[in-house]
């Protein structure tokens, strides 16, 4: 029993010594994490007169870039559609997205809609403004901070 107590005392002394040693080192600094923009793919179908939206979280103040990249026929794969749709940026409200900035766009590989925002939850909404004659596939690229 005495031997066990002696070993415990030695272990405690070593532990304290180790703690003391570490406290003499320079204070640890938190690693710097630089987060780049996040890219999200929002895909789906829109019926005549329909809409769809996608919600996401912006972590730091910056731009939301919205690219309506693809609008194609649902019945003929690979067939592009030149139809004009509306795209908008806003904030989720109940079961929809309340748009604060929007514009009309055809599918293209450049972002026509850029909105500068502060951290929070936002959404992108795409909707028919009366031009659709049938259901289409769409794809939207969203880049945000």
């Amino acid at each position: 029993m005495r031997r066990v107590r002696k070993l415990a005392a030695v272990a405690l002394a070593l532990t304290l010594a180790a703690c003391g040693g570490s406290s003499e080192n320079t204070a640890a600094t938190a690693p710097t994490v630089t987060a780049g923009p996040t890219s999200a793919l929002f895909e789906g179908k829109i019926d005549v007169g329909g809409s769809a939206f996608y919600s996401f979280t912006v972590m730091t103040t910056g731009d939301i870039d919205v690219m309506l990249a693809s609008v194609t026929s649902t019945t003929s794969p690979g067939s592009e559609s030149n139809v004009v749709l509306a795209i908008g940026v806003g904030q989720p409200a109940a079961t929809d997205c309340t748009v604060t900035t929007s514009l009309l766009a055809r599918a293209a590989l450049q972002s026509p809609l850029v909105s500068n925002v502060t951290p929070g939850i936002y959404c992108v909404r795409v909707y028919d403004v009366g031009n659709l004659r049938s259901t289409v596939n769409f794809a939207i690229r969203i880049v945000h901070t």
Partner: protein
Amino acid sequence: MAPGGAAMRLFQASATGTVNVTLTVTDPPSTLVGLGIGIPGNNTGQCDLTKTVQTRPGAAAQLSAGVEAGYYCAGTFDVGGLGTRGVLVTYTVAHP
């Protein structure tokens, strides 16, 4: 490229500019195929197409599109006319 299939490739544009896609060779020769450009996704050959044309091989770019920096895809897809043996396609993608 198999009948009903697609042959798409991913590429990264480093800056804003124009992408030119050229279908240079098909075997069998002069086969009509779809040529498209878009963003990586879950539709045609894992590519959500933005612009497409139906074309036969040639020396000049059959498809051009303005892009900003980012990831894109381009390639060919069957428009319904391929034989059971499919087609061998060669195309180039010139991008910033």
